C-alpha cells in the first residue's frame, strides 16, 4: 500500500492533490510534537469510547431481550428495522436540533446509530443460546445474576466480540461526522478546517494518526480479551 501510494503521489501533477507518504509522516510528527494531536485525538477517542460503551450496553440488553422473548421481538422488530435504515446523518442532525450543539447530543447521536447494529447481532446470539444449560441453571436454582454471568454471557462472547469490532470502526467514522458538523474540537473538527483549505496532507495526517489509535485498541485490548475468553475452546490445558 505504501509503495502504491508513493508511486501514485509521484505521478500526480500537483503535489497538493496527493502528497507523498513522507510529507504526511512529517505532518503527523509536527502535530504530535505540538501537542495538538493528543488533545484532538483524545477528544475524539473520548466520544468514541463513551458512545461505544452506551451502544454496547443498550444493544446487548435489547438483543438479549428480543432474542429470548418472542413477544419483545415481535413488537420491537419494526422499530429495529426502521432504526437500522435511518441514515446516520439524519440522526446526527436531529440530535443536534433537539438536544442542542453539545457533547450529550454528539454522543447520543453516535450511540443511536450503533445500537440497532449491536442489537441485531446479539439477537442472533441470544437465539443460539443452549437450552440444556438453561435447564441446568434452572435445576440448580442458580441466581439470576450468576446465570447471566456464567451461563449466558460466555455463550454470547463471540457475538459481543464481533459487535465490538464492527462497532468500534463504525463508531469512529460517525464520530468524525458528528465533530465535522457541530463540535469545536476533535479529529473531525480539524478535518473540517483542513477541508476548507483543501489541505490533503493535513486530512491524511489526522486520519492516519487516528487509524493508528484504533489499530492499537484492536491489538492491545480486543485481541487479548478474545484470547482469554476463548481459552476453554482449546483441547489441551
Amino acid at each position, binding site marked *: 500500500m505504501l509503495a502504491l501510494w508513493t508511486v501514485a503521489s509521484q505521478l500526480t501533477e500537483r503535489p497538493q492533490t496527493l502528497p507523498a507518504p513522507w510529507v504526511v509522516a512529517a505532518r503527523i510528527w509536527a502535530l504530535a510534537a505540538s501537542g495538538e494531536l493528543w488533545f484532538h485525538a483524545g477528544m475524539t477517542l473520548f466520544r468514541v469510547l463513551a458512545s461505544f460503551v452506551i451502544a454496547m450496553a443498550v444493544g446487548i440488553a435489547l438483543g438479549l431481550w428480543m432474542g429470548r422473548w418472542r413477544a419483545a421481538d415481535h413488537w420491537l422488530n419494526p422499530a429495529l428495522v426502521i432504526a437500522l435504515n435511518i441514515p446516520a446523518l439524519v440522526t446526527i442532525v436531529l440530535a443536534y436540533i433537539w438536544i442542542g450543539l453539545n457533547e450529550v447530543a454528539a454522543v447520543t447521536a453516535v450511540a443511536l446509530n450503533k445500537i440497532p447494529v449491536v442489537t441485531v447481532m446479539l439477537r442472533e446470539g441470544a437465539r443460539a443460546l443452549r437450552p*440444556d*444449560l438453561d*435447564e*441446568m441453571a434452572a*435445576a*440448580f436454582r*442458580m441466581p439470576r445474576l450468576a446465570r447471566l454471568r456464567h451461563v449466558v454471557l460466555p455463550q454470547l462472547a463471540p457475538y459481543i466480540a464481533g459487535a465490538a469490532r464492527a462497532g468500534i470502526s463504525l463508531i469512529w467514522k460517525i464520530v468524525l461526522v458528528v465533530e465535522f458538523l457541530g463540535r469545536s474540537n476533535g479529529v473531525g473538527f480539524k478535518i473540517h478546517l483542513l477541508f476548507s483549505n483543501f489541505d490533503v496532507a493535513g486530512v491524511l495526517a489526522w486520519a492516519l494518526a487516528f487509524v493508528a489509535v484504533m489499530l492499537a485498541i484492536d491489538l492491545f485490548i480486543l485481541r487479548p480479551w478474545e484470547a482469554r475468553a476463548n481459552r476453554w475452546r*482449546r*483441547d489441551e490445558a
Partner: protein
Amino acid sequence: MRLDLTAKSFGPRAVLGSLTLQVGRGQRVALLGPSGIGKSTLVRIVAGLDHDFDGTLSGDDRLALVFQEPTLLPWRDALANITIPTGCGPDDARALMAEVGLAGREAQFPRQLSLGQQRRLALARAFAARPDILLMDEPFASLDADTATRMIALTGALLDRSGAGLILVTHDPAEPARLGAAAMVLSGNPAILHR
C-alpha cells in the same frame, strides 16, 4: 417430596395419566419404561423444570438433577463447574472431585476431560448441591459396560454416604437392582405407574 399428578399433556396428546410418586431421604425408586413413554417428562416435572401439568407437587426437599448428558459449562474449569451452579465452597468441591476420582483435574476445562470424567464431574456437581433427593435421567445410557458399572458403584457409594433419596430414570431393568432401588414401570397410554 410428593407428586400427585392428574394429567400431563403436550397439546392435544395426553402423555401421563393419574399417578402418585412419593420419595423421601434414603428411599430409592427407579422409573422403568420404553423410550418415549414420558419418563423424562415425569422427572422434569419433579425437578421443577416443567410447571405445565395438572396436579400438585409438594415437599421442600432439596433436589439435584443429573442429566442424560453431562451438561457442564464448557467455559468454566472443573472446580468452577461445581462451585458456580451449586454455591458450594471450593474445599468441599475439591473433596467431592477426589471422591469421584478427579483429584488434580480442578483447573481443566470440560473439553479437556473424557466423557466418563465429565459424567463423574456432573455427578460430583449434583452431590455438591447437598440434595435430599437425587434425580437421575438415564445417566448411564451412553456409557460402555465397564464405565457404567463403575459409575453405578460410585453413585451407590455417594448415596450411601449422603443418605440422599434417589429417583432414577432408566430403560435398563438391571440398574435398579444394582442401586437397591424399588422398580416402578411406566406404561399405558396415557402412561401410569405400576409397581
